C-alpha cells in the first residue's frame, strides 16, 4: 500500500493504478526470426527483482496514461518516476 505520483495527475493511492509488470522488455522487431528460446525469454522470463525494479504502471482509474516507475520491491519505496520511451535512470 503506497502512493504513486502520476506524472500527469499528481499523487494518488496505488489502488487507482494497475501494474504493467517489468519495463523495458522490447517487442521483437522480427518476430518470425525468433527461435523458441527467444520467444520464451520475451513472453515469460522475468527478472522479478528483490530491490530496485523498473516497471510500467497505468493510471487506470485516472488519466489512463502509461509511465515508468523505479521501485524498490523490498520496501515498496518509489525511487523515480519517468515517462514511457525514456531510458531507465541510473540509481
Amino acid at each position, binding site marked *: 500500500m503506497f502512493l504513486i505520483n502520476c506524472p500527469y495527475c499528481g499523487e494518488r493511492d*496505488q489502488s487507482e493504478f494497475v501494474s504493467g509488470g517489468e519495463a523495458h522488455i522490447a517487442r521483437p522487431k522480427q518476430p518470425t526470426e525468433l527461435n523458441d528460446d527467444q520467444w520464451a525469454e520475451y*513472453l*515469460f*522470463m522475468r*527478472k522479478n527483482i528483490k530491490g530496485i525494479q523498473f*516497471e510500467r504502471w497505468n493510471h487506470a482509474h485516472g488519466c489512463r496514461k502509461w509511465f515508468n516507475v523505479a521501485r524498490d*520491491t523490498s520496501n515498496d519505496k518509489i525511487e523515480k518516476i519517468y515517462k514511457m520511451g525514456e531510458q531507465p535512470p541510473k540509481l
Partner: protein
Amino acid sequence: MKNKYSIFSLIKNAFSNHENWQRAWRDPEPKKEYDAVIVGGGGHGLATAYYLAKKHNLTNIAVVEKGWIGGGNTGRNTTIIRSNYLWDASAGLYDHALKIWEGLSQELNYNVMFSQRGVMNLAHNLQDVRDLKRRTHANRLNGIDAVWLETNEVKKFCPIINTSQDIRYPVLGGTLQKRAGTARHDAVAWGYARGADEMGVDIIQNCEVKGIKRNGDSVEGLETTKGFIKTKKIGVVAAGHSSVIANMAGLKLPLESKPLQALVSEPVKPIIDTVVMSNSVHAYVSQSDKGELVIGAGTDSYVSYTQKGSFNIVEETLKAILELYPIFSRMKMLRQWGGIVDICPDASPIISKTSIKGLYFNCGWGTGGFKATPGSGDLFAHTIANDEPHKLNAAFNINRFVSGDLVDEHGAAAVAH
C-alpha cells in the same frame, strides 16, 4: 531414536507438567559437505528432505532456512487442501498429494489435524456455472470425487450462505469435493522436520543462502551466512524468493512474486463446518479448530517482497464475505498478514531440473502450494534422487515455457488455489 507420540506419552508427560518432552529436532551446525542440500525450510522443502531420506536413502543431506522452519508461506496460508483441478496433469499431481494427506498423521506419528470437511466452490455467474460443471466432469473422469450442487443444495450444505438471488453476485450453484478439507499448517512443517531429523537430515535454521558456486555447467556448493557448504545437488524450494536464488546461479525464471493476504477473526463457536471458496468475488472462508474464521483474500497486482499487501484487497474480500455471510457482519478481525507467492504465467508449479547440472527448482506454486506439500516433496525428492522427473511431475518441467506445452489452470482453478 525418538520417543513415539501417543496417548501414553501425553499422560506420562502430564505428570511432569509437560516440561520434559524430548526436543523434536536437533539444531546442528552445517557440515562441510552434503550429498544434497535443500534451500528453504518450509513444508515443501522439509517434505522433500523427508522423502529423500525415507524413499531414496539419501540421509547425508541438509535443509537450510534463512529464518525459522515453517515461518514463511507454510505458516501464512489458509490451509485449504483439495485436488479438483481441471487438467489431467494437475489432477494427477494434486490428487497424489491428497492421497498422501489421508495417511500423513499416522506416517509421521504427528497429528497434522487433517480434516476432510469438504471444499465447496461457488458459482456466481453463468460462465462460472459452465466452468465449474466442466471441471466436475473432468474431475470425475480422472477419478476425483466431485459433485455439482444446485443453489438449494448449497444452502443445505452450508446454511449460513446468503442464497438470495437479489444480491450483486448471487449463488448460482457450486461444486463440492468431499475428500478435500484443511490441515494444521505448522504441524505439517514440524511433523516433516521431526521425521527428517530422525533419519539424520540436518535442519539448519538462521542460515541464509548468499550465493551458488558453479563450476561450468554444474553446481559445487552454496555460500551461506554460516559458511560455504559443498554439495553436488541443490534443490531450491524458496517460494517467493525463488527468482532471487535463481539469479545467484545466473538463471531466469518465469515468475512474479506478489503479496497474498489472509486474515483471521476473533474465535467464535462452530458456525461453518466446511471450506467455501468464491473465486469470482475473491472470498474464501473456513473455521479453525480454535474457532477463528480463516479468510483468504487476493493478490496485489504488483511485484513486492514486503509480506504486507494493500488494504483495498482486504476491503474487497470483506465486502464479498459480508454479502455472502450477513451473519458475520459484527465479527471483529484480529490479525491480517501477507505472504509472498511466486506465480507462474500458467498458474501451475515448476518441479524440475534446470540447464545447470545438480540444480533443481520446486517453485511457482503461486497462491495454492500448501495443499500439494506432501506430493510436491515426494515428487521433488524423486526428481533430485534420479536426476529425472517422476511421471506425475514430468509435465511441470521448466521447458514447458519454451515448448509452449503449458498447464493452464488460470481459467479453471481461477485465482484461488
